[in-house]
């Protein structure tokens, strides 16, 4: 019985020491947080966000800790701009690609030589005829620079004839969260019109096709072709016929022969605009 009491006393003593240590550690952490200005509440009762009171408290006051989320973008850039990508090739030559200012789409594939999910894309690029990209679409691979990638590994993965730019700066410019990542740039507008990730390249190709169709529809729709091009007479009629046929309105269609105003503008008509597939990739 006495032995049991002694053992219990020792256990209680050890637990007390342990709890005291934990409390001391917790106090140290709270003190460190308080010194960094991240304490909850303020012992002095002042507003923790009040910078003037913080300054007035002198060296004992909270220290402001600047929090940044990566380098700020230069003023002339925005989240849709498409700056020129300059870097080196895996063989050490210099290469710069300007996705803006051309009349084609540029698909930028941000890949790494070591990432497992990139392997399928590298493999797919060895069969360019099977990629399924629409015409006038330029494919460019962008890896990080030689300081973060092994050029030899990139060379081993990249197919001949495919432009590969090694540029860490480009990953920052295009705000790439990780690899694989794809960005589609419309050369005419000089803007990114889609970005995101995919598991297979066929998914990317399909999204590029949709974006290209949408971009074309928008360009044609906003141009007002017959008037802008000064068409008249039979040429104008022919252009109108083409537009109607493309919209599914064939000769003899009832909509071409309205008998009343209600036939043209039905009272319960909703949004008359055609549905458009949103430009962009799943992200």
């Amino acid at each position, binding site marked *: 019985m006495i032995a049991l009491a002694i053992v219990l006393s020792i256990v209680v003593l050890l637990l007390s020491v342990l709890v005291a240590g934990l409390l001391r550690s917790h106090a140290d952490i709270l003190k460190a947080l308080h010194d960094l200005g991240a304490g909850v509440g303020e012992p002095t009762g002042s507003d923790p966000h009040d910078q003037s009171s913080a300054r007035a408290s002198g060296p004992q006051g909270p220290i402001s800790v600047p929090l940044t989320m990566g380098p700020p973008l230069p003023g002339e850039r925005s989240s849709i701009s498409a700056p*020129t990508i300059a870097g080196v*090739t895996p063989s050490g030559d210099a*290469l*710069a690609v300007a996705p803006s200012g051309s009349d084609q789409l540029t698909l930028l594939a941000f890949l790494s030589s070591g990432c497992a999910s990139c392997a399928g894309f590298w493999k797919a690029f060895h069969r360019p005829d099977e990629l399924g990209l629409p015409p006038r679409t330029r494919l460019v691979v962008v890896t990080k620079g030689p300081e973060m990638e092994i050029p030899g590994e990139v060379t081993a993965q990249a197919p001949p004839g495919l432009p590969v730019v090694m540029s860490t700066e480009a990953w920052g410019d295009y705000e790439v969260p990780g690899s694989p990542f794809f960005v589609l740039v419309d050369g005419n507008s000089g803007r990114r019109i889609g970005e995101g990730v995919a598991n297979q390249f066929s998914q990317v190709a399909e999204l590029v096709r949709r974006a290209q169709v949408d971009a074309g529809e928008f360009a044609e729709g906003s141009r007002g072709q017959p008037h802008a091009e000064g068409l008249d007479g039979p040429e104008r009629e022919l252009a109108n016929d083409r537009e109607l046929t493309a919209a599914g309105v064939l000769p003899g269609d009832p909509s071409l022969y309205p008998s009343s105003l209600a036939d043209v503008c039905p009272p319960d008509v909703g949004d008359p605009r055609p549905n458009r597939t949103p430009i962009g990739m799943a992200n």
Partner: protein
Amino acid sequence: MATLRAHGIEAPLPGGFEGRIFMRSSIGEEAPSPVAQFATFALPEEVGDFGGGAVTLMGADDIFTTLFEFGPESLGTRLFARQGFPRSLSPDNFLPYVLRRGLGGQSGTQWFFTEAGRPFTLYVVLGSHARRRSLVPRVNGLLANLAISPSPEPSLPSSARWN
């Protein structure tokens, strides 16, 4: 401004330009030499030294420029007697018959010179001779900041390899 830098050539690119600086593959005993190409349109992967395969893709507002280094045997010859890079060209320097490949509407100019002890030729093609007055300032914007340094020492290969 994006900057290309390789093989002793540095080229800050004005907006709308892209380019490449690479070592031309040697033929026979010929020593490989650097070539720099700049364009305002998408350069295809395979382009001849003087724009073969690229100039046919040019629009009226496009520019193609190549900077081609010759071997050291050309140093001191009369062709390369001009010292210094032509930094500013004039619309009058461009003529339709200077083109290596005569394409309707285009015009070009070619200069031979020595810079930093290296013999070069500069060849510029404009997409439209008629628009040369608006295109030449853009060419000058590119040439103004191009820098050529003395021949770099042969560098070690970037990766280990057996002889």
